């Protein structure tokens, strides 16, 4: 990296500013000692929370947690300022101290402080009380606090992912809906695998998901309440209904309905159950996804000959094609930040995951391979999750990648996994 001095005379004027740019990009070295247990019984959870935070920040790619073996100082009391020199010595730029204490009423109290080592300042301090079984979630919430305070961007750790769990031999795969924390922990199965399930999508309320299921007849779109386990069919349409997705306000579901050889986009109001047609073309329009402000939507259509991405007003109207690269584009999904649309691109014998701006500019391929598909954005729009099938006798797995194309990571799942959908932040 060069050019930190702009090509201007530095002192042409007496008070001209000296211009500096960063020397590079580097994950921020951060020290996360085990939390201090309030009592000997809190030892396990104190270590566990620190590990959850360490794992989250490390996986983000923006932080480099320092090995605890390098620590000089042992934190025993978080109400006393740490000896900053001890943390400077090991090149820590930030330090997290915390304490986990079981309350007399049985609940768990978590406290943490985030320190700027160089400045010797406390940057954040919070206290939470929760039920003991939610200790991992406390770790995620604290991770988000640290992430937000040090990067200035929203976090994404306190979130969940719904996906299709796949098990059994390839020719007789059992596919079940499953739910887990974004880091792969706390897996729960939502269906038993009797019927084929596809394309689960989270509601903005996080309490409901919508998905497609192949039962005895045509595939249908369902709503499923995660908390109650209850499910209901979305509408009762002739023919197939598929590719459902919630509107940003959670009040409507947009989907494709097949009519003859074509499929078009329809939106259904979940309260009134009224349905509105949005497209009417002799083509296959599918995979709709709303912009976060709800005014526009993107979708996939082969009206131009092969599948491409189009953008149109949410109330219907003329659609504008935005993808013009080689190959075909499918499964578009609008970022929660509104700045990008992610897609699956097929061409040259490869499936790629990429992003482009809503006007079609700035296309960027993030990963390519034999089979990559189904991108879904993290709540902060910075990270994408997708599934990758290496072919052969194996099965698909979940991966995350930064929207810059860096920091690709496999997400641990109990078995094969596909079709992930990331929830909004839980808090």
């Amino acid at each position, binding site marked *: 990296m060069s050019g930190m001095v702009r090509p201007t005379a530095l002192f042409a004027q007496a008070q001209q500013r*000296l211009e500096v740019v960063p020397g590079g990009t580097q994950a921020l070295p951060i020290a996360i000692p085990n939390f201090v247990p309030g009592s000997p019984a809190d030892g396990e959870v104190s270590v566990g929370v620190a590990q959850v935070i360490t794992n989250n920040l490390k996986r983000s790619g923006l932080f480099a947690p320092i090995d605890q073996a390098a620590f000089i100082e042992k934190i025993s009391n978080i109400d006393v300022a740490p000896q900053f020199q001890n943390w400077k010595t090991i090149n820590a730029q930030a330090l997290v101290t915390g304490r986990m204490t079981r309350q007399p009423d049985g609940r768990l109290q978590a406290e943490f402080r985030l320190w700027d080592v160089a400045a010797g300042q406390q940057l954040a301090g919070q206290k939470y009380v929760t039920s003991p079984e939610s200790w991992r979630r406390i770790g995620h919430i604290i991770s988000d606090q640290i992430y937000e305070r040090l*990067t200035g961007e929203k976090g994404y750790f306190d979130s969940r992912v719904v996906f299709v769990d796949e098990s059994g031999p390839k020719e007789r795969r059992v596919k079940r809906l499953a739910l887990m924390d974004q880091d792969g922990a706390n897996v729960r199965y939502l269906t038993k695998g009797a019927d084929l399930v596809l394309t689960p999508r989270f509601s903005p309320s996080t309490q409901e998901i919508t998905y497609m299921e192949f039962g005895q007849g045509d595939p249908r779109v369902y709503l499923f309440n995660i908390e109650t386990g209850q499910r209901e069919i979305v509408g009762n349409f002739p023919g197939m209904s598929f590719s459902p997705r919630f509107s940003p306000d959670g009040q409507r579901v947009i989907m494709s309905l097949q009519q003859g050889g074509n499929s078009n986009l329809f939106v259904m109001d979940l309260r009134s159950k009224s349905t509105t047609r949005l497209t009417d073309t002799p083509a296959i329009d599918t995979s709709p996804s709303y912009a976060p402000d709800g005014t526009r939507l993107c979708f996939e259509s082969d009206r131009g000959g092969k599948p491409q991405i189009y953008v149109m007003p949410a109330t219907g109207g003329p659609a504008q094609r935005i993808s013009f690269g080689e190959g075909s584009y499918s499964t578009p999904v609008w970022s929660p930040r509104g700045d990008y649309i992610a897609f699956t691109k097929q061409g040259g014998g490869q499936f790629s995951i990429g992003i482009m701006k809503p006007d079609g500019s700035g296309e960027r391929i993030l990963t390519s391979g034999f089979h990559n598909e189904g991108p879904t954005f993290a709540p902060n729009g910075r990270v994408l999750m997708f599934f990758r099938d290496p072919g052969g006798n194996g099965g698909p797995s979940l991966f995350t990648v930064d929207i810059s194309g860096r920091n690709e990571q496999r997400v641990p799942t109990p078995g094969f996994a596909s079709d992930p959908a990331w929830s909004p932040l839980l808090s």
Partner: protein
Amino acid sequence: MKVDKTLVASVALHVLVIGWGLMSFSSKAFESTEIESVPVEFVTDDQLNKITAGIKSGKKENPKPLVEKVAEAKPVDDAVGKITEKKAIVTDAAPDPAPKPVEKPPEKKPDPPKPVAESKPKDEPKPIEKKPDPPKVDPIAEALKKEETKKPAPKPEAKAAPPPPVKKREYKFDRETIAALVDKRDPTRQAFAGDTLNSTPALGTAKGTAATLSASYLSALVSRIHDCWQADGGGFDEQDVKIPITLTFKQDGTLSAPPLLETEPRNDRERAIFEGARRAIIACQPYTMLPAAKYAEWKSLPFLFHNKVD
């Protein structure tokens, strides 16, 4: 042959006068004239013309030329005396602003998820309790204050050990030894020379612009901060975010005050960029490339930090 006496007398007188003049003038001592100080390093003609121009901010009346180093090295009488500039740090009687105690969110509800089988979420709210404000002095503030007062006083400088006796060796030509003696430094100006130190900038001569030559150490300063400051990779900054920061220095090149953000950050991202730059600036001090003789020039410097790596 008749000799003209007047001619002889005239010749003799002329010889006498000319001889006296030659003798008397040649024996008179040469007068030395005072010369203006010049840079000791090689400089281009253009730079040479500019070199004594002085600094715009210099006093008009100041007749003494700017001198940054003594022309001929003199033995230092009392080396320890230089160290005395670093006075022991004395903390203010008032306590330093303490970090905030853990207290922030009033009754925030993290509301962790519950298994399906369990009761409804509203049955058992899990609020983030607000920690009551401690009425007493914050122990951390006290500790920080203690920490400040504990800062070590400047160490007495150890006397330099006398150099070991040099063994006289028979001269032997060694190419490598000669190469090592060659000054490989770039032939750039290092400092003005003179017989006495004078840190006050002079107005200089009419044609010079010596101040422009000081860009070299400022470039080195910018380069040093550039090397130390690593972007965090966060954010979605498509555009160039510019953070105006003023740095004030002590004469030894350390910061005399924390880096000052000149405008309120417009959002959390700008604040994070500033704090990242601040960490780098603090961690990288002292900035030894700053010449003490020009302290007035760099005592306070305005910067513009850009978040973009490229």
